[in-house]
Structures are given as structure tokens and as C-alpha cells.
């Protein structure tokens, strides 16, 4: 099970700014190790965000996203106390979901 995501969500001016730091190797599949063998691709393919249970964002990621990726987005109408939940799914079928409360 991968390391938990670090999620911060702050409400201001009628929206909540959500900042997520994900722990993931994000291996592109293009690199070769010292012996010359290709290091297999291992990266997040889908990210989804939910606001009080309703999906507000879906993203499709590929090998261009960096290791330990950082994601920031705004949810219009979200207020302090609301729940934000983030899920990622990678190409190995691994997934992780973490939640935070909007402050």
C-alpha cells in the first residue's frame, strides 16, 4: 500500500483550493537501468476527486507527470467542513484513496 496522500483544502471567496501531494514513483517506462534493461512503466493513469461524495474532477495522467506528483485545483461552492476525497489508479491496478476536510 503506497504512502498516504497529503491533502490540504482551504475555502475562500466561494471556492475551496485543494492541494494534493501524491507519493508515487511515476516511472515512465523509457528509462534503462545500469544493465541496459528497460525499467517498466509504473505510473498513475487516473485521478478523480469527489466533493461530499459527488465526482467533480476526472483526470487521465501519463508518463509526462513527475515523480511524487503535485495537483492543485479549485472546487466552486465548497465550504469549510465539506469532504474532499481523492483517488488515484495506476497502470499496475494499484489504487489509493485519501480524504480531507475543507478548512
Amino acid at each position: 500500500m503506497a504512502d498516504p496522500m497529503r491533502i490540504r483544502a482551504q475555502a475562500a471567496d466561494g471556492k475551496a483550493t485543494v492541494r494534493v501531494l501524491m507519493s508515487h514513483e511515476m516511472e515512465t517506462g523509457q528509462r534503462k537501468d545500469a544493465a541496459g534493461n528497460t525499467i517498466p512503466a509504473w505510473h498513475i493513469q487516473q485521478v478523480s476527486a469527489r466533493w461530499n461524495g459527488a465526482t467533480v474532477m476526472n483526470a487521465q495522467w501519463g508518463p509526462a507527470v513527475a515523480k511524487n506528483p503535485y495537483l492543485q485545483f479549485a472546487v466552486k461552492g465548497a465550504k469549510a467542513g465539506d469532504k474532499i476525497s481523492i483517488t488515484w489508479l495506476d497502470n499496475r491496478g494499484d489504487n489509493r484513496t485519501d480524504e480531507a476536510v475543507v478548512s
Partner: protein
Amino acid sequence: MKRIPVAGLLVTAMACALAQQKFGADGIAEYRKMLEDGNPSDLFEARGEELWKKKRGPKNASLEQCDLGKGPGVVKGAFVELPRYFADTKKVQDLESRLLTCMETLQGFDAAEIAKTPFGVGEQVSIEGLVAYVSAESRGSRFNLPQAHADEQKMYELGKRAFFYRAGPYDFSCASCHGEAGKRIRMQELPKLTSDPGDGVGFAAWPAYRLSSGEMWGMQRRLNDCYRQQRFPFPGYGSDVTIALGVYMGVNAKGAQSIAPAIKR
């Protein structure tokens, strides 16, 4: 009619030149500012806090009784007073060598083994988390290394001499890169470390997450790679020269604000 396209070309040429100039020092400064939000050090801090509290090692104990200089278990504020003299080991120690002491005496790990372990492997990975956690607990505080003990003063003097020690096939010392203000290697600015280079710079910016390699580097690793680039032989992990340099830089940085764990390109 001919005037307008020429003027247009001129404007475009100037804009390109300006853009190129911006891509130089200013552009890079902008890029670095953008990196500051979403520092993956956060992930290492979380891991480190867990490792501090978790019962581990042959003695199945946590690090919560570890004395980092302000008393057993006191983490807040400890980072900005290291390296310092410790009565129990009778040595001036930096954060990493002190963590090794605690991992051995409290948890039963073999400190010498961890010192021999290459960076990024085995218990060295635990150290990455621990230095991120401990330094985070002093974030925003100002450096205030003690210099009351004779050994602390001695290490400062030795650190200064080490800083200016030129050798190797390139004749480099630390001062070759860090001895003057306003210098850079390629596009990487180099802080002057013979005096306080300011808040969040130099000694005040490590440990740090290096984006280019996706690695968390403590001061020991930073010094190790400095010596590699200086074409010196290999400095031992936690060796006296690394501690002395930490004392020299830390005392020079007195009053500077720590931003560790930081983010670097």
C-alpha cells in the same frame, strides 16, 4: 506598407531577445518560486514522524526518548542548534550522527553499519524521513548553534580550515564555489557561506527534496556530493570533517531562518 512588417519583425526580434533573457536568471527564479508549493518533502516529513514514534530495531523501542540537544524527546527547535556538543558521547554531533547514536542506544541498530550503507538504501532511507521530520519541527526558527563548549569552538576553527582546504586534481576547496557573493556555476546560484547568506539559503535550506532526481538529501549527502564534485576522496558518513563544516556553516548562519526541509531543482 513596407514599414509595418519591418517594425513587426523588430518587435518580434526584441520580444525573442527579451524572452531569451527571461529564460536566463529571471525565468529560473520564477520556476523555482512555482516549485515551492507542493513540496514532496511533506511526504518524507510524514514518514519521519511515523519512524520517530514507531517501535523498531532489536530493542523494539521508538526514538521518542532521543536527546537531540534540548532534552530527551524534545524535537521542536533542536534542528537550529545542531551541530552541538553532547555530554553522553563527549562529541560534537550533527543531526544525522545524533540520530545514529539514538538508533543504536535506544533501538539497538548498528550505527557503524548504517554509516557504511550507501545513500538511498536500507536504514539510510529511514534517515531521510527522520531528518525531514526533525528539520520541519524547526521550520521558520533561526539558527542559534551553541559555541560555549571548547570542543564546539574547536570544531568551528577546524570547519573553517576545512572550508578553505584546496586539494585534488582541480585544486578546489569549498571556498572555490562558496567563497564569494554573487557567483554561480552555470545557472546555479552559489551562496557565500563564509558569513550569513540570508534566510532560507545555504545551510538553512538543507535537508531538501531535489526535484531533478526525486531524492530527499540530508546535509551529509549534500556534503558527500560536494566532495565528489570537488574531485576529493570519499568523506565518511558523519566523519569529523562533515561535522566541522556543519559547525562552521551553522555558526556563520546565526540568525538566519531555516526553511528545511526545502525543495530544490
